[in-house]
């Protein structure tokens, strides 16, 4: 078995994996990164969403071998030791996650959107999240949170290497309670 060479959250891993290993199984079972979730396992629910070379994909529909030589970002790669990523902060502030199972996928879909489109419309946010199913929180708060994250990130430098640039915690709007506006 030829070892795979995959960069995950900025760190290069060289490891063997059987051919039938999906990228999701590699992340969860070989690397212990359980942020990406196994939901439907057929590309409908988006709980396994990760970014490969900056694009959102279903990790359940990609063989690990197809990620050989590529760069993967999972939810574990977003926060720094000092602070959550601004998208995570916005989801926290706007109570956009309830059970949280869909959260890693939703937040990575939002990251891919905001990397390509720093000031999306509500319609563009909806389109970007259409492949992420949520069964408890509902989508309205998520859309609000992505809007807020876009504003927080607006004018900020490139966030592709969040570990290199710690992001300070943002003040709550109006010194509020952290609940939705």
């Amino acid at each position: 078995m030829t070892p795979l060479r995959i960069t995950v959250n900025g760190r290069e891993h060289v490891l063997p994996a059987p051919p039938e290993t999906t990228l999701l199984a590699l992340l969860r079972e070989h690397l212990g990164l359980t942020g990406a979730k196994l939901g439907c396992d057929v590309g409908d629910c988006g709980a396994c969403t990760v970014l490969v070379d900056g694009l959102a994909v279903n990790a359940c529909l990609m063989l690990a071998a197809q990620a050989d030589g590529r760069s993967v970002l999972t939810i574990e790669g977003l926060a720094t030791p000092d602070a959550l990523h601004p998208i995570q902060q916005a989801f926290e502030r706007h109570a956009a996650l309830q059970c949280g199972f869909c959260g890693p996928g939703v937040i990575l879909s939002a990251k891919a959107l905001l990397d390509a489109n720093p000031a999306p419309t509500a319609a563009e946010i909806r389109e970007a999240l259409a492949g992420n199913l949520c069964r408890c929180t509902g989508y309205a708060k998520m859309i609000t949170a992505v809007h807020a994250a876009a504003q927080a990130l607006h004018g900020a430098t490139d966030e592709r290497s969040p570990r290199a640039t710690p992001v300070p915690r943002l003040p709550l709007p109006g010194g509020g309670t952290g609940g939705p506006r």
Partner: protein
Amino acid sequence: MRAFKLVSATDSAQAVALLAEHGPGVKVLAGGTDLLVDLKAAPEAPAVVLDISRAADMKGIAATDAGLRIGALVTHGELTRSPLVRELAPVLAEAARTIGAVQTRNLGTLGGNLVSGVPSMDSGPALIALEARVTVAGPRGTRTLGLAEFFVGPRRTALAPDELLVDVVVPAASLGKPAGFLKSGLRKGQALALVNVAAALWIDPDRGAFRAPRIALGAVAPTVIRAPRAEAYLEGRAVTAEAMAEAGRIAATEARPIGDFRASADYRRELVAVLTRRALAAACDRAEGAQ
């Protein structure tokens, strides 16, 4: 998934050779959005999976003398973002954008969608309305054929077991041709088409008449089909809302839809009439915008 042997090709020639070497039991993997779903459900693993996702000559979008060449491995996401596609054949970007969701569009390929032969595919109608051709490579060399002839039945194509779809070419004569694509599903996101329709046409500026109208219907026949009687009705006819509505009614008689749990056959025929009229109107709007 059950264990299988994985082989990988870095170009189409190597892929064809590996296909021949491993025989009819080999499964071809590109974007994986269909194949991995199938393999997870299959009681037995295939002997060999041939990963063609790194075949460099099957990637990329380029304007050539023959037309717009789109590699079979181009993803739906790449189609939606390509400046060349948006400039020369924007209807392809519009159709690609209705497929699945962002994540599946970033994985799934145009070639994979076409070789699936699924009648409700969203890649087919717009390409057929633009009279696209496909290039197929096999051990006997390459051949080209019209995309309309490539589809031979539900989930069946003209591809021999030892052949691969290499690229799709939108002919130069169709580039810039005003076109529209409409799709109706049961919801907005991640929906299969109940019906999808593409229309492409020129407007004769002197006579204000339709010229070379092309109408393609999806999900209402065993394959994506043209609507030749509706096209013949429009040819040379003055551009009016009434003419477009009548063409829609004619197209509905050319559709041969099934009824299933998503929609009845009658409802699908109604959708053909409405979506054809709207696709024609969208193409006319684009023609006027270009003048």
